[in-house]
């Protein structure tokens, strides 16, 4: 209703104005009544129930009064029709509103409590409206009653006057009430609007809050998920790292052990090689020294060999020589000699003349006994 009013303020204002005019017309029509009619001593407050007094009424007045009543009826009818139309519009609007409100049901649910209160307040307003409607209907009934009474009995004028006054009073009161209600309605509408805006704002905020919370939740979950995954990843990596480290450590240890073994083996080999090389070196040194020694002996003996003329190419002479440690020749023994005696003698003499024989560079290779093969060519 409130919404309807807010939607069609013009109609409402017109309706109100019509009511006001109607009331004023009624009042003024009463005023225009002769004072005489006014009971003496009678008080308006005393009446809800009109005291019908038998009085004589002129037909003319009745006609006028009837005319006025007819006009009033028509006005009421017109008002009613307009009200109904307005109600229909309001209903249509309401349906649309409800449909729209339906769309906001989700939001509305969120603020059910406020909505309930609002509904309560609206119910209250509707009751009041109904009461207004009831009163208006009562007024209509009374007016009908008055008209009937007027039609039936002029004596009831006073009562009617009284009723009229009361009705006017009532209308005035109703108008006041209505104004008050309109004010209230306005306040209510504003309150409602404010509440709606607040609700919307709240809903928006809540939605935002929800969205934010959801986003936060999502972010949190994502973060948690991420953290979980990160943790898992971390754990996995850690495990892998650990495994890797262990493997590395193991490999390192194995490598170290292997290296140590190899080192040991290598050292053993190298030692063996060194020994062998030392032995070979020794042997080589001795062999070299032996070669040198033999060459030195050979050279000296050859230089001292005065080979006789006539030695034939095929002649050979083999002798063994014993020497002492200083190389001095102690004994020369002819093992075999193909040549003549002079040749043989030359061989023996060559060795004797070469005495003392050269000594070896290395004492260890010294040999006491030597063997010589002499050949002319």
């Amino acid at each position, binding site marked *: 209703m409130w919404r309807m009013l807010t939607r069609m303020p013009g109609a409402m204002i017109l309706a109100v104005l019509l009511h006001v005019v109607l009331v004023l017309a009624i009042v003024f029509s009463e005023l225009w009544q002769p004072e005489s009619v006014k009971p003496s001593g009678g008080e308006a407050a005393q009446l809800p129930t009109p005291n019908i007094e038998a009085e004589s009424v002129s037909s003319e007045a009745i006609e006028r009064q009837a005319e006025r009543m007819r006009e009033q009826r028509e006005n009421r009818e017109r008002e009613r029709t307009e009200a109904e139309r307005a109600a229909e519009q309001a209903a249509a609007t309401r349906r649309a509103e409800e449909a729209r409100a339906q769309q906001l049901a989700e939001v509305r649910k969120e603020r059910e409590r406020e909505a309930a209160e609002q509904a309560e307040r609206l119910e209250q307003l509707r009751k009041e409206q109904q009461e207004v409607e009831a009163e208006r209907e009562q007024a209509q009934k009374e007016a009908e009653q008055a008209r009937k009474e007027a039609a039936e009995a002029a004596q009831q004028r006073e009562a009617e006057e009284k009723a009229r006054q009361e009705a006017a009073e009532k209308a005035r009161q109703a108008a006041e009430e209505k104004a008050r209600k309109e004010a209230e309605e306005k306040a209510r509408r504003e309150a409602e609007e404010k509440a709606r805006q607040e609700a919307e704002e709240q809903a928006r905020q809540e939605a935002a809050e929800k969205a934010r919370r959801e986003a936060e939740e999502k972010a949190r979950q994502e973060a948690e998920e991420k953290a979980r995954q990160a943790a898992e990843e971390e754990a996995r990596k850690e495990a892998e790292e650990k495994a890797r480290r262990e493997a590395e450590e193991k490999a390192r240890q194995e490598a170290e052990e292997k290296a140590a073994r190899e080192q040991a083996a290598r050292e053993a080999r190298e030692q063996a090689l060194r*020994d062998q090389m*030392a*032995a070979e070196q*020794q*042997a080589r040194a*001795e*062999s070299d020294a*032996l*070669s040198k*020694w*033999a*060459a030195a*002996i*050979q*050279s000296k*003996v*050859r230089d001292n*060999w*005065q*080979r*006789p*003329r*006539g*030695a034939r190419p095929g002649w050979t002479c083999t002798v*063994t020589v014993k020497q002492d440690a200083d190389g001095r020749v102690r004994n020369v023994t002819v093992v075999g000699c193909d040549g*003549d*005696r*002079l040749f043989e*003698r*030359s*061989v*023996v*003499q*060559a060795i*004797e*003349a070469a005495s003392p024989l050269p000594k070896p560079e*290395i004492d*260890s*290779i*010294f*040999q*006491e*006994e*030597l*063997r*010589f*093969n*002499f*050949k*002319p*060519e």
Partner: protein
Amino acid sequence: MTVLAFLHRSHRWLVSTALAGMLAFVTPAQAALEIDISGGTETGVPIAVVPFDQSGEVADLARIIGDDLARSGLFAPVARDVMPARPASPQQLRIGDWRAGKARYLVMGQVEADGDQLRTRFYLIDVSSGERLAGSQITANASADRSVAHRISDIIYEELTGERGAFSTRIAYVTERGSVDNRTYTLQIADSDGANPRTVLESPYPLMSPSWSPDGGQLAYVSFEGNRSAIWVQDLSTGERYQLTDYRGINGAPAWSPRGDKIAVTLSKGGNPDIYVIDLDTRRTVQWTRSGSIETEPTWFPDNRSLAFTSDRFGQPQVFRKAGPDERARRLTFDTSYAAGPRISPDGDRLALVVRDDRGFFVAEQSLDDGKRQLLSRGGGEERPSYAPNGAMVVYAAQSGSGSVLKISPAIGGEPQTLSYDRGKVRDPVWGPFND
């Protein structure tokens, strides 16, 4: 000169490495270190013949001995001025003094005169070892002093070489002296060093080709006395002689057989000079060659059956061998356009001869084993050689200026020695046998 030292692989060097810190001890090989010596210096063996302790008119024995040894080509006597000392006996010898010198052997000795006798002691010392190799005392007539020296030379030679020395032998040869109008030919016999020559025969007719009987008591030779050649045999001790051949034509080149029972000669009684062998007992003459060419200069092999001779049956003189009168002649010399004057060595292994090349005539020796030949003379105007009885030397005549001299070359090669001799021409030397 190749020098090789063989380190025999059988040598084991036992190196004890277990004894760380100890000196590695090398056990010498069981087998001796073996060293080969080849090359060396081919030389006459240096020998110091120390002048003997002698006095008076006695010849310088040491000089004679040294010359003898030098002629053999095997020895190189050390000059006296480099000798460190003059020991004459082992008591005087300090062998250490000699070891620094070249001499490998030392000969020393002393001669004591005892009336007309000479008592000579000598010693042969091996300088290297200090060992006394030979030593003896020889007593001889004072006039035989040179013979004593040659005898010592023979002993030394035989001691050192193992071969008999031939220094106490003689050489026969022919001399030619005087002008064309008054020419005198002599047959001479001298010591092996040319000393003590004595005339066996003197003749106004040419004398040629002496030949010693194996016992050294006779000489066969060619004489042209009566202006025809004939072969004569002369006893050296008595001087008696007889004519062996008197054939028409050439009677030449007598060669006494080793056993002394035959003489091979060249006779041209058949028209051409051919080889004949005359049995001295039966005087039977056997013709050995019939080639129609010149066959001459026969010489015996030691087997007393084979002859070598010169033949120009192939156009040029070459040496052939024939094992009997009916045997086929086998050529011994090749690779030369002139090979003549053969003499067979006492051992039968070598052939001494004269070969000609573009420089002249040379004495050479050829191995009958492998045919290798080497020149023994140097001059280019040499004549037929003759072996010493030990085969170690050859003697031959060599042109010298307008005349000629006798030279001796070692058979092994080496510097020829010229025998001192007086002027004139000397030819056809032939070495006599050993004196026993």
